[in-house]
């Protein structure tokens, strides 16, 4: 789970390696200290060590690997155009990861990260301009998706400052905003390959999985989120945090009691499963076996989380009943 499975076609493998090589060229052209930063894994992945960034294969597959997850849909593009879009899309997404880290205050050198963000963003757009003429309807999608990205990040900042802003609609807008830079790559591939009609389906599938992904993160990390004072939609549905403007201090045990009483994790995992099913449904008519397999893998994993959560609650409910009837 979590690694990009390249299509069997050797051309796919060759193009994937070429995008990584282009990333190294990009790093080599940066001012020395920024080039060093761009080659470190922790710059994008937050790992504490000085391990080198191995390229786009190091990232979650959905971030920069979508041209290969939707390979059968876009393999008709020639090498040059496919590569230019894949490179531009990858740099644009890497820029958005840095922006996330800067906003979340996770970037360890925020000033340098801002400069690297600027370099990635500029070069990413340069590639997309080289691949798609100014007259292409791609640019209308680019504007729309960039606005969604900005709106999502802005909503997140508002919610962190005032918990009462975190409602279901805000949460969905935030998740959609986060995935928008990734949709840019697919919008470019759809327009360049003369298949604009596939974009709404791909975009819907990605937006649905983005909501599911954020829910999974929030359910899995609720204790760490409380400890870090990080507001999430899941937490705002847990009574100690419901309807409060600011995050109350560490209420881990009170939150656990509330989650157990109402099986809130079970309810949210069921909602997550619904979003994953919607993601599969949206893409079902497209030629994208790699993508469908990926989403299905997460559907199975989420179902496994649900099994564990339900079993945990059942044990908690049944153990005292069995003990009571035995005494």
């Amino acid at each position: 789970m979590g690694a990009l499975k390249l299509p069997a076609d050797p051309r796919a493998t060759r193009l994937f390696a070429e995008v990584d090589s282009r990333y190294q060229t990009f790093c080599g052209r940066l001012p020395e200290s920024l080039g060093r930063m761009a080659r470190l894994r922790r710059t994008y992945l937050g790992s504490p060590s000085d391990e080198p960034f191995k390229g786009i294969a190091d990232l979650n597959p959905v971030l920069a690997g979508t041209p290969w997850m939707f390979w059968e849909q876009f393999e008709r593009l020639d090498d040059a155009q496919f590569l230019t879009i894949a490179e531009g899309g990858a740099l644009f997404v890497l820029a958005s990861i840095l922006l996330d880290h800067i906003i979340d205050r996770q970037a360890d050198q925020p000033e340098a990260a801002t400069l690297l963000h600027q370099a990635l963003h500029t070069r990413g757009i340069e590639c997309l301009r080289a691949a798609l003429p100014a007259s292409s309807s791609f640019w209308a999608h680019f504007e729309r998706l960039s606005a969604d990205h900005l709106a999502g990040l802005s909503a997140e900042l508002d919610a962190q400052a005032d918990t009462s802003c975190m409602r279901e609609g805000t949460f969905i807008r935030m998740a959609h905003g986060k995935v928008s830079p990734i949709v840019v790559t697919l919008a470019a591939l759809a327009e360049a390959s003369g298949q604009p009609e596939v974009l709404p389906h791909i975009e819907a599938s990605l937006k649905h999985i983005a909501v599911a992904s954020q829910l999974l993160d929030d359910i899995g990390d609720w204790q760490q989120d409380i400890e870090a004072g990080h507001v999430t939609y899941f937490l705002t549905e847990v009574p100690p945090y419901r309807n409060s403007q600011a995050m109350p201090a560490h209420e881990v045990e009170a939150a656990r009691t509330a989650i157990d009483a109402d099986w809130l994790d079970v309810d949210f995992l069921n909602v997550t499963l619904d979003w994953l099913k919607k993601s599969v449904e949206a893409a079902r008519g497209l030629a994208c076996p790699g993508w469908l397999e990926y989403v299905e893998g997460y559907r199975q994993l989420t179902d496994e989380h649900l099994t564990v959560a339900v079993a945990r609650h059942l044990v908690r409910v049944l153990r005292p009943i069995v003990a009571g009837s035995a005494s």
Partner: protein
Amino acid sequence: MAAKATQSSREHWDKLIRLIELAKKSRKLSNTMRHGKPSEVVAALREQVGLSGEEVAMILDDLELIADRGSVRWWSPLG
């Protein structure tokens, strides 16, 4: 004797899985498990899952093993 024991374990395992699947999907059973009195819980298990009070005691350890599965990592699709 061993074959009978195996058959009995198999039946309990099947009922355990049925219980988990119903608790995931059936709002009726799930609500009783969440908020019901002990007598209502026991009745619901008997009627909806076919589990007697004795069988509930027998499946509890297996249920606990499933609840303790620590190997399920919280990967997320865009994480």
